[in-house]
């Protein structure tokens, strides 16, 4: 239960093809993250799977069966919205119970399931409150509670953490990941935050302008990005891109080196530069180094570095970790 297949899914709003054509396979029990910059069509894709938007052409299969024309209520999917979309006039209890009530479940059974879900999500003390009397994190939990009571084929999350503050976001990230382990259910999770994608996903789908740029595990994307877009999007701080002569020396139009794959030294490296702004994170230091013909490069060094602004510095890229791209931006393997 819970596999989802997209076949040549196309979506137009008027004349604009927001999603030109996507083929995708989400396997049962997988945690799949759609990641990409804002406006690239992540929400649209999720809403097509949910049935909240109709595909212009193509097919959506759920558990191998064609669901393209099924209304959202019949797809057996649960969704957690960015705005939480709780029913403001209902108590937390009624919110969580709503899907079960719609399924016509007997009252006693509903009560037991709601109590269960509330227990899992630490909401037991808040069951009689209205959503407006809850904090952001609690509302988020109610939205998740409403999604899990029904045991759907799959869960859809649309940027569920983007309205929370940073520390809560990290905590909820963990809770959702634990929930996935516990339930073993298929989850599709949309985010524009590559850190969320890297930390949570079994499989990441990188989207750009409605197209799939690459599909793979977090480490595959990190180690072998298929093109410049993925290389630049995955990893923080961003990969350094070098064009021209220095790239040609490696037989490529562009080469990419991640900040963590450059060694710094006082002399002897292959590139030279001057230290500009340095950002100290405690455990790490990000140095921005101005070079004559390569532009500004970011280097990630340890917490203790002996260089400061204005120092001249030598750089050595890790030869095994240089990514090469052709003139179309595709990776050369």
């Amino acid at each position: 239960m819970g596999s989802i297949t997209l076949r040549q899914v196309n979506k137009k709003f008027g004349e604009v093809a927001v999603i030109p054509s996507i083929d995708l396979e989400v396997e049962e029990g997988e945690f799949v993250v759609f990641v990409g910059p804002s406006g690239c069509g992540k929400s649209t894709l999720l809403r097509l799977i949910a049935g909240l938007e109709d595909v212009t052409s193509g097919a959506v299969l759920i558990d191998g069966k064609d669901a393209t024309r099924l209304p959202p209520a019949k797809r057996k999917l649960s969704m957690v919205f960015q705005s939480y979309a709780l029913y403001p006039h209902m108590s937390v209890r009624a919110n969580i119970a709503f899907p079960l009530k719609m399924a016509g479940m007997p009252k006693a059974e509903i009560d037991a399931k709601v109590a269960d879900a509330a227990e899992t999500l630490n909401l037991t003390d808040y069951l009689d409150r209205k959503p407006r009397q809850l904090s952001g994190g609690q509302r988020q939990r109610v939205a998740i509670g409403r999604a899990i009571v029904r045991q759907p084929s799959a869960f859809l999350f649309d940027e569920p953490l983007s309205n929370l503050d940073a520390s809560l976001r990290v905590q909820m990230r963990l809770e959702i990941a634990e929930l996935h382990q516990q339930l073993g259910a298929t989850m599709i999770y949309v985010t524009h935050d590559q850190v969320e994608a890297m930390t949570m996903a079994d499989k990441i789908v990188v989207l750009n302008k409605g197209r799939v740029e690459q599909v793979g595990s977090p480490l595959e994307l990190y180690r072998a990005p298929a093109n410049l877009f993925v290389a630049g999007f995955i990893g923080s701080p961003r990969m350094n891109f070098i064009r021209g002569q220095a790239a040609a020396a490696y037989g490529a139009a562009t080469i990419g080196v991640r900040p963590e794959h450059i060694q710094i030294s006082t002399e002897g490296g292959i590139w030279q530069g001057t230290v500009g702004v340095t950002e100290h994170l405690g455990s790490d230091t990000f140095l921005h180094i101005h070079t004559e013909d390569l532009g500004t490069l970011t280097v990630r060094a340890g917490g203790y570095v002996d260089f400061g602004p204005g120092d001249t510095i030598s750089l050595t890229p890790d030869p095994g970790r240089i990514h090469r791209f052709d003139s179309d931006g595709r990776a050369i393997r």
Partner: protein
Amino acid sequence: MARRVTRTRKWAVTIVAWVIGILIFFPILWTILTSFKTEGEAVAMPPSLLFFDWTLENYREVQQRSNYFMHFLNSVTISLGSTAIGLVIAIPAAWAMAFQPTKRTKDLLMWMLSTKMMPAVGVLVPIYLIFRDTGLLDSRLGLTIILTLIDLPIIIWMLYTYFKEIPGEILEAARMDGATLVAEIVHVLTPMAIPGIASTLLLNVILAWNEAFWTLNLTAAQAAPLTAFIASYSSPEGLFYAKLSAASTMAIAPILILGWFSQKQLVRGLTFGAVK
């Protein structure tokens, strides 16, 4: 300094608000006071504000001369009837326009509103003739129909603005939760829209209650509501100010009381939901 300025300003605003409030309320107050005067005192110059011989004579006479209760019942029937029918038509219409908009929705809304920009007298003759030929003249049914029609654009507009405030995602959440269209409307939409529907209902009852052009022109005796009852005391020949005032007071009393008890809803309604 800053504190003083804001305090002074607060006082100024309060005083201005009271002055405007009293100015607006004054005609109503004056009508009510006049209704307790004799006809002679009603036109006395200079007028007396509070110190006159209070009398209930006008009320007694108005009661004797006209059938207040019949007019009252007519007003109730017409205003509630037109509002109820209006809501039944307007709720689905506003729903469709707020949640399933098409390219033409905005044009349609403007077009509906534009019908309110035409002076009513411009269509008096055709409507009068239609009513005459269909036997709707001086009937409560006829008035209910005409008031429904003239207030429908306002009802739809008000409901539309309220429904627009309901986030679409909540309705989508209901759909994801397995709600059918009917369940979605009954369990999610309507409860959330009730404040808006209530304001619309109240405002429309008041508008219909006070509507005087069509009610005066299309009725004679049978279906005449309270507006016609008031008008029957405004005659050019005699001194009837006091009785006119008594009739007016009796006509507006029910709606004043209704308004008083529903102030909060009304304010929300009149500001189209801008005040939360």
